[in-house]
């Protein structure tokens, strides 16, 4: 388990950044290991930024939009039509567009932080935010289903129609586990894990470069360039994943709500 420790000429050992290093000390600490952290600051900043941008973009409401309004309308139209209308559809989708819209841009901005120097922290790499969002969606789709079908919704969700009765003892537990237990876990952990992994890779590359530069041996210093090239590629990939995960999270939300609205259709 020590291959990462390079045999350096001067005997120094490389210590990779640990998960502990992902949690910076609180900006305003209160008590043991607790306080107002950078992660919290970034979450609040994202709210301010998103609200400011979209209020500014939507406020004028001109028939022939300016640049800012066009950008805002394109972003809003993307979530409204490509996610809301296409997945949920029908007459019901407009009720859920605000939720989908807020989710998408909240996650997007909080993820993109990881690709911006100085911010450099995808806030969803801390599991709390992902848990909250997935939990909120979980409560939402179950609430939507219960409101439409009443208690029958639970039966509709866990007992698929058209399945022979003798298979039900196997299918029903599987449906319960997959819909009510695994679904919110995968929904939150997918977002959290991709962000944490990306953040770790970037941190690892950064500390690796710093370590290699500090070496006496010129050739060893030169290898830091290789790490830099690899890290840049990873950075691009991470930026893509940050956008993609925001989309995936919102898309899954729409699919869960659609499933709850049409629980009797399958």
């Amino acid at each position, binding site marked *: *388990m*020590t291959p*990462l420790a390079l045999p350096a000429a001067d005997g120094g050992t490389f*210590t*990779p950044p*640990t*998960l*502990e290093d*992902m*949690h910076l000390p609180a900006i305003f600490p209160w008590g043991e*290991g*607790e*306080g107002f*952290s950078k*992660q*919290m600051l970034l*979450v*609040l900043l*994202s*709210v301010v930024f*998103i*609200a400011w941008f*979209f*209020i500014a973009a*939507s*406020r004028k*409401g*001109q*028939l022939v*939009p300016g640049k800012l*309004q066009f950008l*805002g*309308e394109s972003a*809003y139209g993307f979530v*409204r039509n490509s996610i809301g209308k296409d997945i949920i559809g029908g007459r019901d989708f*407009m009720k859920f*567009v*605000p*939720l989908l*819209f*807020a989710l998408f841009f*909240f996650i997007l901005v909080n993820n993109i932080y990881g690709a911006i120097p100085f911010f450099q922290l995808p*806030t969803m790499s*801390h*599991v*709390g*935010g992902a*848990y*909250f*969002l997935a939990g*909120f969606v979980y409560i939402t789709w179950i609430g939507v289903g219960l409101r439409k079908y009443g208690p029958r919704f639970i039966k509709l969700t866990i007992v698929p129609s058209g399945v022979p009765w003798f298979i039900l003892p196997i299918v029903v537990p599987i449906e319960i586990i997959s819909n009510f237990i695994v679904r919110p876990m995968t929904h939150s*952990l997918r977002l*959290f894990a991709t962000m*944490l992994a990306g953040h770790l890779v970037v941190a690892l590359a950064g500390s690796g470069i710093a370590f290699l530069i500090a070496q006496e041996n010129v050739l060893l210093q030169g290898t830091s360039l290789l790490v830099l090239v690899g890290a840049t590629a990873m950075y691009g990939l991470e930026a893509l994943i940050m956008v993609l995960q925001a989309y995936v999270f919102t898309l899954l939300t729409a699919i869960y709500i659609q499933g709850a609205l049409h629980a009797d259709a399958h």
Partner: protein
Amino acid sequence: MNQLIVRAATEGAASPLMPNWWEVLVTAIGFAVLLFIVVKFVVPAFEKTFAERAEAIEGGIAKAEKAQAEASAALEEYKKQLTDARTEANRIREEARAEGSQILAELKEKAAAEYDRITEQAHAQIEAERQQAVASLRAEVGTLATTLAGRIVGESLDDDERASRVVDRFLDELETQNAGAAK
């Protein structure tokens, strides 16, 4: 890496799957505020703009459709008027032709009647004149003949009654001769 595992094991709270509850709370508050702003301001504003834009476009299309309909209605009207005018012209022409031929026939008829009348009149006049000539000739011839005969005979044939009897007999003989010759 050994170090890492050891640290994770000793400080159980550091497991990446354990949330910091303060972070959950801050995310919840932040997201709730954002959702509120989106529901209250952003989505209604965008939807209003979309609706207005759709209305403007649809209004323009409706206006264009109305103009199109009006134009085609006017065209129909003109075509109908043109057809009516053509029909009217044909009718008038037809009537004129009929009237013309009627007038011509009437004129012909009138001319023929006039011709007959004139001919008739001429015949009557000629007949009357002939009768008159015959009468006057008869009288003249009698007088002349008796005068002439008186001169020849040397005897006055002034006895009118006898003279006229003689003349008449002569003329009658003449007429019978004429009639016999004519046969």
